[in-house]
C-alpha cells in the first residue's frame, strides 16, 4: 500500500516541479494529468472489451489477463443462444427515443414559459417544481406500481415513457437557457407581425433552442438508456426487455457466463460510444451549450 502511495506522491511532485520550471513543462504536465485521468476513465471499458474475448475461467485467473483472448467466437455463440440482443436493442431504442422526444417537447415549452412569460404564481410554481426534484421516488414505488397496473401499463412501454416525460430537471435546464438566449425583441417583432404565441414558439424560438435541445436530449437519452429499477417492475416478459434488463438476466446465481455477458455489454454500449466518439464535437458542443447561467 505504502509503495503505491509513494509512487503517486513522487509523480505529483515531479509534475509540480515540471510545471514550475518552464511553460513547456507546464503544458506537458497538463497533458500528463489529462491523459492519466482519461486512462482511468477508459480502463473499465478496456477491461470490458478484453473480457468479452475471454472465457469465464480466464477472466478469473491470476495474474489477470489484460490482453484480448481467443474466446470471442465462443462467447458470441453463447450470447446468441442465451439472449435476443437485437430485440432488446430495439426495445431500448423505442423507449429511449420516444421518451427523449417527449421530454424535449414538454420541457422546452415549460422552461420557455417560466422564462419569458410573467404570470401570477410563477415564482411559487417554479419553487414547487424545484422542490419536487428532492423527493426520492422510492418512497412511492408501491402506490406507483398499483397505479400502473390499474392503468394496464404493466408490460407496456408507456409506463416508462409517460410519467417522467415532463421532468423538473429538464424544465429547469430549458428555463436557464431561455433566460439568456431568447431575444425579447424578436418575440415582439413576431407578435407585431400577428403571429400567435404558438407560432412564435415553433417558428422563432425553437430553432434558437437547438443547442439546449441537444444537451438536454443527450442527458435524458443516457439516463433512460440505462434505467433499471422501474423497468424491472414493469417489463416482465423477455421479449419486452430493454438492454439493462437483458444484461441483468444474464447474471445468475447458478453461475454466469461472464465472457458472453461482457460481450453483450460491449454490443450494448459500443454503438453509443462510437456515435459519441465520431460526433464528439457535435455532442460536446450540444452538451455544453451555455444552457445554465444566471
Amino acid at each position: 500500500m505504502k509503495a503505491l502511495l509513494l509512487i503517486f506522491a513522487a509523480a505529483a511532485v515531479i509534475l509540480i516541479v515540471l510545471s514550475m520550471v518552464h511553460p513547456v513543462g507546464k503544458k506537458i504536465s497538463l497533458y500528463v494529468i489529462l491523459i492519466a485521468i482519461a486512462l482511468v476513465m477508459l480502463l473499465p471499458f478496456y477491461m470490458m472489451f478484453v473480457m468479452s474475448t475471454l472465457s469465464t475461467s480466464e477472466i478469473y485467473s491470476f495474474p489477470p489477463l489484460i490482453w484480448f483472448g481467443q474466446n470471442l467466437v465462443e462467447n458470441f455463440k453463447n450470447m446468441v443462444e442465451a439472449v435476443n440482443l437485437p430485440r432488446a436493442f430495439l426495445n431500448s431504442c423505442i423507449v429511449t427515443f420516444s421518451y427523449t422526444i417527449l421530454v424535449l417537447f414538454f420541457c422546452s415549452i415549460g422552461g420557455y414559459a417560466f422564462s419569458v412569460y410573467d404570470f401570477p404564481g410563477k415564482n411559487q410554481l417554479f419553487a414547487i417544481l424545484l422542490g419536487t426534484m428532492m423527493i426520492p421516488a422510492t418512497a412511492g414505488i408501491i402506490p406507483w406500481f398499483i397505479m400502473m397496473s390499474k392503468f394496464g401499463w404493466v408490460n407496456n412501454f408507456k409506463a416508462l415513457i409517460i410519467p417522467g416525460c415532463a421532468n423538473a430537471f429538464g424544465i429547469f435546464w430549458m428555463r436557464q437557457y431561455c433566460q439568456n438566449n431568447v431575444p425579447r425583441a424578436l418575440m415582439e417583432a413576431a407578435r407585431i407581425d400577428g403571429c400567435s404565441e404558438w407560432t412564435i414558439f415553433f417558428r422563432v424560438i425553437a430553432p434558437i433552442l437547438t443547442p439546449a435541445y441537444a444537451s438536454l436530449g443527450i442527458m435524458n437519452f443516457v439516463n433512460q438508456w440505462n434505467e433499471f429499477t422501474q423497468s424491472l417492475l414493469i417489463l416482465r416478459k423477455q421479449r419486452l426487455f430493454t438492454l439493462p434488463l437483458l444484461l441483468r438476466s444474464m447474471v445468475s446465481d447458478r453461475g454466469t457466463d461472464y465472457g458472453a455477458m461482457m460481450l453483450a455489454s460491449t454490443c450494448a454500449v459500443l454503438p453509443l460510444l462510437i456515435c459519441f466518439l465520431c460526433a464528439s464535437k457535435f455532442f460536446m458542443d450540444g452538451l455544453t451549450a451555455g444552457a445554465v447561467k444566471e
Partner: protein
Amino acid sequence: MRKTKQFLAGAMVLAMTASMFGGATMVSAANEDISGYIEVGGWPSGDDAFKAALDGFNEAYPNIEVELVFTDTTAHHQSLQTALAAGSGAPDVAMVEGAYIAQYRNSTALTDLNTLGADKYKDDFVAFKWDQAVSDDGTRLVAIPWDLGPTLYYYRTDVFEECGLPTDPDEVAELMSTWDGVLQVAEAVSIPGERWFLPSAAYPYQWLFINRDYYDEDLNLQLEREGDLECLDACLKIRENGWDMNVDMWSAEAYAAYAAGTCVSVASGSWFSGFLKTDIDPDGAGHWGATVLPAGMPSTNWGGSFLVIPEQSENKEAAWAFVEYMMATSKAQNEMFAAVDYFPAYKPAWDEAPELYTDPDPYFGGQAPNAIATKIAAEVPVVYNTIMDTTAEGYLYSSFNAGAEAGETPEQIRERLGKDIEAACAELKEQQIQALKDAGVWDGE
C-alpha cells in the same frame, strides 16, 4: 415396464383431478376441460426444469397454454412481492425460494391451496417442507413444496488425491468427523495465496444454522448450538492460517475457483450439484465428490423452492392443474430432477424411479450423492421459520468476518452476532409479531 408404471401413476392423478373439478369419473389420458393461458414465473433453472416436464403436461392438458417468464432470483421475488402488494401483475403460478416462504405463509394474497384440493397430498410431501407453507394458524396452505436441499459437503477429489487424502465419501466423512480432522484436511489441501480449503472460514459456522431456525416460536433468538464454540474455534484457525479465500461463496471469484480447483470444497443444498454440472464447472466430471457435513454436524436442509398461486390469478383452475401436475406427479418431479437436480419434496417420486437416487452419478466419478441426500432428507427436523431468517443469515457471514478481523474469541463472536442480528431484525420482528397477532396465534405481550 417403467413407462407403464409412470403412465398409471399419471393417470391416477388425473383421475383424481378430474373427479375433483368436474365430477367426471372417467379415467382419461387428457383433460380437455381445463383451458386457457397461464403465466409461470420464476428464476433459472426452474425454466429448464419445467421445459423438461412440459411435454407431459401438454399431453395431459392440451388446452392449457403455458408461458414461462423467468428472471434472476432477486428480481423475481421483488417483482412478485410488488405485484402481490399492488393486487395485479403477478404470474398465475410463481416460484418462491425457501428463504422467502416465511414472508408468505400468512398471506391472503396467495390462494389457499387446500381449497383447490391440495390437502390430500399432505402425506406425500416431506413434512418439514410442507409445514413451512402452512399458515401460522394452521388453516391455510399457501404453497406446494417443490424441492429440498439436503446439505452436502462438496469437495474436489482430484486435489484430495493429490494431497494424499481419501476420496471416497465415507472415508472423507470419517476423516473429517472431528474438527481436528477438518483442520488436518484444511492444512493438507491449502497453499496460502494459491489454493484454499473453503471460500470463507465463516461457512462452517453458517452450516449449523442452515435450517434457518434462528428464532424459536416465542421469537427468541437461539444462537447457542451444540458444539458451536468448537466450530467457531476451528473457523478462526482456518482464517488465521489463510486456508480460506475470504470471499463470498456465491461470488464470481469463488465460482471461478471451484472450477479451477483452487477452492477445494464448499457445502450447499443438493441442488448445487446441478449448478456444478451445467454452469459452474461443466467440464468437471470426475473430479467432484460429495458427502455429509463434517464434524458430526446434524442433517440440515438448505433452501429449495415452492410453487404458489396468487389470489389475483384469473385462471386458478389451470394454474392448479399446472402446480398439481408438476409437483405431485412422480413423472414430472423426476423429469425435472433429472434435468436440474431439484431434489423432489414429493416422496412417491423417490420410489418411482429409484435409479435416479441410488445409481452412481458419472459427474461425481461414480459416487451417488443423491443416495446421501435421500438419507439426509429423512433426518431433517421440522423447524420454525420467520421473516427474519434471511437478514439473520446475511450477518453470519459479515459478523464472523468482523469478529475475526477484530481478533475476538468464539464467545465474543457469538455475542456480536446476536447483537447484530437483533439490531438488523428489529422492525422485521415487530412485523412478525403483528403477523402472528393477525393470525391469532401470538400470546406474548
